[in-house]
């Protein structure tokens, strides 16, 4: 093999670096684990992610558990001496829960027996987020195409009816046609606004508001549509939820989109005669704002990959643009919040959004932009919403 001729940082050539240093330079967390599942040696990346936890059980270090994990790639390596892979959610020192790709391989002693295992854990959290976003985008496009076709039909129809009304000198028909045109132009506007969220052109504008007031307003505006469909609608907002620096327009859009999805799930559910949607808010033990939107609609089919953030068949409805859940995802990301969904095919769904109530941003634009950032390292300028 040709030797590299580019010196490394301290002037020595790469192949002269001691193995120990290479071990520490690897950007994945490496640990040597004995057959008692205790950590015997770690590299520098491991220490940064989990601390110097040599001597402790791996399941305690990675997962905070008292007992071994049921599905453990290291256990499989000890059993068969083979290399095994997995994806795990682990607790890190400073980054909270992170998704890691794990590979375990055997360390074989002189007698050919597996005496320990080497575990390499690589943080893939950002890749998982990007993959989820791409998958959401793909699904959104299908719903989007359907929505656009309905809008085009409405616009084509409106123009046709207006022209026909002129030919017939029929003012009543003219009004109907014009209303069709206006209605569908409004729908184009909605699509445009949601695309702005998804393309990240819109910068979140933080204000010191009560998230409950935003949720209440969004629910109030949506209530007539729910009533029109004969669906029961309850809103329970915990009065102890305080104020915080959030993006009220983003939150309003988030709530509206979750309600649209819930209503569509109810409209397209053939299994029940009576449907309901329930909105609830509380503050969790960490002071974060927790919003739940639940429905007893058709739920999410079991064949859908539930590792995705969510998949509501937006192609079944005409109310949503297809970008709804993508908008929700972006708003949650912009607030550095979390979202989860619990759903059962035929029974219904519960979407839970958790948003930190941001402390008052620093007066400097930089700090405010950091608080409003979407986690990808960009620092957008703070501005009034262009919408």
């Amino acid at each position: 093999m040709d030797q590299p001729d580019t010196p490394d940082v301290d002037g020595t050539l790469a192949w002269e670096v001691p193995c120990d240093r290479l071990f520490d330079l690897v950007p994945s967390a490496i640990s040597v684990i004995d057959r008692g599942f205790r950590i015997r040696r770690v590299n520098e990346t491991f220490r940064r992610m989990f601390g110097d936890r040599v001597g402790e059980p791996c399941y305690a270090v990675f997962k905070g558990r008292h007992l071994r994990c049921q599905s453990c790639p290291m256990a499989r390596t000890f059993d068969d001496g083979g290399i095994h892979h997995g994806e795990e959610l682990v607790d890190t020192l400073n980054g909270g829960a992170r998704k890691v790709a794990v590979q375990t391989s055997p360390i074989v002693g002189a007698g050919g027996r597996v005496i320990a295992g080497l575990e390499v854990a690589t943080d893939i959290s950002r890749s998982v987020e990007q993959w989820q976003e791409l998958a959401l985008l793909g699904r959104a496009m299908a719903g989007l195409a359907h929505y656009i076709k309905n809008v085009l039909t409405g616009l084509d129809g409106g123009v046709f009816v207006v022209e026909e009304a002129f030919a017939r000198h029929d003012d009543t028909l003219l009004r109907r046609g014009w209303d069709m045109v206006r209605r569908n132009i409004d729908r184009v506007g909605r699509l445009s606004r949601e695309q702005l969220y998804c393309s990240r052109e819109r910068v979140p504008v933080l204000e010191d508001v009560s998230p409950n007031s935003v949720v209440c307003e969004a629910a109030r505006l949506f209530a007539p549509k729910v009533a029109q469909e004969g669906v029961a609608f309850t809103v329970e907002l915990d009065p102890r939820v305080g104020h915080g620096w959030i993006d009220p327009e983003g939150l309003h859009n988030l709530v509206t989109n979750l309600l649209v999805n819930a209503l569509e799930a109810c409209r397209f559910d053939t299994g029940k005669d009576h449907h309901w949607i329930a909105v609830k808010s509380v503050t969790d033990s960490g002071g974060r704002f927790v919003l739940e939107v639940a429905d007893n609609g058709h739920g999410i089919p079991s064949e859908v990959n539930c590792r995705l953030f969510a998949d509501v068949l937006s192609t079944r409805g005409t109310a949503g643009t297809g970008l709804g859940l993508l908008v929700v995802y972006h708003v949650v990301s912009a607030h550095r919040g979390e979202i989860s969904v619990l759903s059962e095919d035929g029974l219904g769904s519960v979407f839970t959004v958790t948003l930190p109530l941001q402390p008052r941003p620093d007066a400097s634009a930089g700090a405010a932009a950091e608080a409003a950032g979407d986690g990808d390292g960009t620092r957008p300028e703070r501005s009034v919403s262009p919408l």
Partner: protein
Amino acid sequence: MARTVLVIDDEPDVQTYLATLLEKEGFTVVTAGDGEEGFTRAVESKPDLIFLDIMMPKKTGIMLYRRIRKEPTIGAVPVVILTGLSQYRTFFAQDFEQIPHPEAFVEKPPKPEELIALARRLTHQSA
């Protein structure tokens, strides 16, 4: 004699559009906004042609189609499915198993001249 066309779509704008278009070409148009109303109107008016939006709430578009095909008085009426889905043949393949297929699928937004030509052909009406 004017042919009667029944337009069943939960979008009022689509009902208005198709009704205006078809009436201009001499058809008598009846409209309905959901599956239940659609079936009632179909049995009452015994139309010469039905335009049916397949994506209506609670699967009523598909359920209505099956019901129409099984109803002796209207089972033979030509049905044109309206859909916003490009992949409709794949999407609906399972729904149309073991029953006569629709006479045509029209993808939204429809081209007016093609819609009228289809309506004339299926109702045996000359231009």
